[in-house]
């Protein structure tokens, strides 16, 4: 067999792992690798900032179920990936990050553009490799992809010194044998029987679903199972879409900005079955008051999640799909009960709502209109109010069509993630629900979208503020809007879009919303929609930090005087004291 360079072997490995697109930005030590990319038929998307590459690979992975791949050069290129890797790690996204590294003989000498990226990313990767010997390339790439996609998925980093990419070797394709890594997907039969027994005996069961159901592709089994037991289903932010929200058994999202009825159901429940969810603090509220009457069954592929945050009565380690299939065989159909009636009544009494306004655009209205005009779109979000409104007011039906940074809460995630999702799903509408603060954190990727003809749509809910933090300041910090006022005109998003060659559209009145969305969806260009919304609008309902999730407040109302005071601040782009306003 003829010898190949390390760089050529890397590309051959990527091809054999089924990679058809990589996201990256070259640099000095990556010259040999990029020369191999030049000769390869793997598509390379050139980003404008490495953070964008990581989020694009992440959005591609979440929307397709495949492993996303991003590439960055040594030093600053690699450190620019860090937020993206951490985002993927917190949300269990299969990612392989390839970083360039200085020549092996320079490692540890503080060479030009050297950074200890395996050290820096140790707490935020599932595993990482520093490849010191070219002959290990095939083995390391096989292991990396295997580790990234199996068990609880996660990011794996491969640090690739320059001299390793120019060294020559004979290609081989090894089997993966890892003594210390055997994720168990099969479930324990006895535990399934115990869980089934409790589920049959429960009078007020709730199924609490997280992102694990999405990663295991278990949503069909979930629907069958919930229907068989007539058990209501609530999802976490990561689980949004795993159970269709127009289903009668759907409770929507639970937790801090979940529905009242989901939170009430949890607090009244006598049995909670958690699947692929991790009892995060945004879900549980005050942990000692969470689900006080319930027994807890916890199904998770990661044994370390079981018993980490709450006491669990029946732990089941395994893949969500296998667990649900096994449970389905053990349970008998249950008729509707008084519990279903009670929940239906709560749904009638406490729906998600907002106060419509004929003169000023409400963000919830924008989302409802997007849902009406693009009901099967992939929705990505930034982080903050836009994210919560997108979760609440779009009717999500598909597990891989709601893409949001849940664990890390990364502002600037949604737009590059949308680009990645669109590349993975070219025939699907992909819409980033954004805020004016978040969008600017990675707006440079407009260039990437325009140059590569990636027709993603961004809907900026422009309130001129860092809205979620402003909301907390309004409620808990005496309306002192410290450093949260961005101003209405910083920048002009329509002109910004046009400067990049994208289409920019603006709506300032509710009557303009629909036509803007229609124009955006009809365009084959990347589009930025700037919706000028009520700056005082709050995400409602809300569980205050540290409260039990049943202590959930309505916050729909805002005073006219508050709006005009805020408008003054938005004009000046700075905080104006109440005395100055008066």
């Amino acid at each position: 067999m003829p010898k190949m360079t390390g760089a050529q072997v890397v590309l051959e490995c990527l091809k054999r792992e089924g990679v058809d697109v990589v996201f990256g930005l070259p640099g000095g030590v990556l010259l040999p690798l990029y020369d191999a990319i030049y000769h390869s038929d793997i598509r390379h998307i050139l980003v404008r900032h490495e953070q964008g590459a990581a989020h694009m690979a992440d959005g591609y992975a979440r929307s397709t179920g495949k492993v996303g791949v991003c590439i960055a050069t040594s030093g600053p290129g690699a450190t620019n990936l860090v937020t993206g890797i951490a985002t993927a790690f917190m949300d269990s996204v299969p990612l392989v990050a390839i970083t360039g590294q200085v020549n092996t003989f320079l490692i540890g000498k503080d060479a030009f553009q050297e950074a200890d990226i395996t050290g820096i990313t140790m707490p935020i990767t599932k595993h990482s490799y520093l490849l010191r010997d070219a002959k290990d390339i095939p083995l390391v790439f096989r292991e990396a992809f295997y580790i990234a996609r199996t068990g609880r998925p996660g990011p794996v980093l491969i640090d690739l010194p320059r001299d390793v990419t120019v060294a020559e070797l004979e290609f081989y394709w090894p089997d993966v044998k890892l003594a210390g890594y055997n994720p168990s997907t099969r479930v324990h039969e006895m535990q399934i029987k115990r869980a089934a027994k409790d589920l049959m005996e429960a009078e007020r069961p709730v199924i609490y679903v997280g992102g694990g159901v999405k990663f295991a592709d278990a949503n069909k089994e979930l629907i069958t199972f919930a229907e068989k037991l007539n058990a209501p289903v609530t999802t976490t932010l990561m689980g949004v879409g795993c159970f269709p929200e127009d289903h009668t058994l759907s409770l929507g999202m639970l937790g801090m900005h979940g529905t009242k009825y989901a939170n009430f159901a949890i607090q009244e429940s006598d049995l909670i079955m958690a699947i692929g969810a991790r009892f995060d603090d945004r879900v549980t509220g005050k942990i000692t008051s969470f689900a006080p009457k319930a027994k807890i069954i916890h199904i998770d592929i990661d044994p370390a999640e079981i018993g980490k945050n709450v006491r669990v009565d029946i732990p089941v380690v395994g893949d969500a799909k296998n667990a649900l299939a096994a449970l389905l065989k053990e349970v008998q159909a249950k008729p509707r009960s008084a519990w279903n009636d009670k929940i239906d009544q709560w749904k009638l009494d406490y729906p998600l709502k907002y106060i419509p306004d004929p003169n000023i655009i409400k963000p919830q209205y924008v989302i409802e209109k997007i849902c009406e005009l693009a009901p099967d779109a992939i929705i990505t979000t930034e982080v903050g109010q836009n994210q919560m409104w997108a979760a609440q007011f779009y009717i999500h039906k598909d597990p891989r069509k709601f893409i949001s940074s849940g664990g890390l809460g990364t502002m600037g995630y949604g737009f590059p993630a949308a680009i990645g999702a669109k590349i993975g799903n070219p025939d699907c509408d992909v819409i980033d629900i954004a805020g004016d603060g978040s969008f600017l954190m990675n707006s440079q990727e407009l260039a990437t979208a325009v140059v590569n003809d990636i027709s993603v749509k961004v809907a900026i809910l422009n309130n001129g503020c860092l809205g979620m933090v402003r909301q907390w300041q309004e409620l808990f910090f005496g309306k002192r809007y410290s450093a949260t006022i961005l101003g209405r005109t910083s920048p002009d998003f329509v002109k910004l879009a046009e400067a990049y060659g994208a289409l920019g559209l603006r709506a300032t009145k509710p009557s303009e919303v629909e036509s803007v969305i229609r124009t955006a969806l009809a365009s084959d260009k990347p589009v930025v929609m700037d919706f000028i919304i009520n700056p005082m609008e709050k995400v409602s309902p809300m569980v205050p930090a540290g409260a039990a999730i049943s202590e959930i407040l309505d916050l729909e109302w805002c005073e006219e005087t508050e709006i005009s005071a805020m408008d003054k601040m938005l004009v000046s782009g700075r905080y104006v004291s109440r005395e100055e306003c008066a």
Partner: protein
Amino acid sequence: MKHTIAVILENKSGALSRIAGLFSRRSFNIDSLSVGATDNPDYSRMTISVRGDRVVLEQVIKQLSKLINVIRVSELDPAESLERELAVIKVSTDRENRAEIMQLVDIFRAKIIDVSARSMIIEVTGDEEKIDAIVLLFRQFGIKEMARTGKVSMVRGTRVIKA
């Protein structure tokens, strides 16, 4: 509650810092950690002494098990296992107390490995309590310097913890 955990890990670069990093990142309290070769050169064995209740211990074991380079994690039941630690202690000495120190060394079956006009280095092995006891006794003479290894531990009888 103190617990002793034995960890078999691959001898690969970064394996040690992954484990050390895990403890600080997850706010687990470790009292001691020792690591060294096993009979198989591909693997090392680490003994970790950790404080916390059962829930903490369970998390420590599960989180360690998740690391790809970790092959095996076992809790060692104190009733069924032996533990040893080594300490070298440099004690201030003078003409008056030298004999008394030597007596203590005898009682504890320790060893004097260096003698100078004003100090001695004493080597002692044993379980943690024994070392604590001798340290306490030497304190009256003045401990100039001390180095302890952290404990190593092994289950009695035929049970083995190996890769």
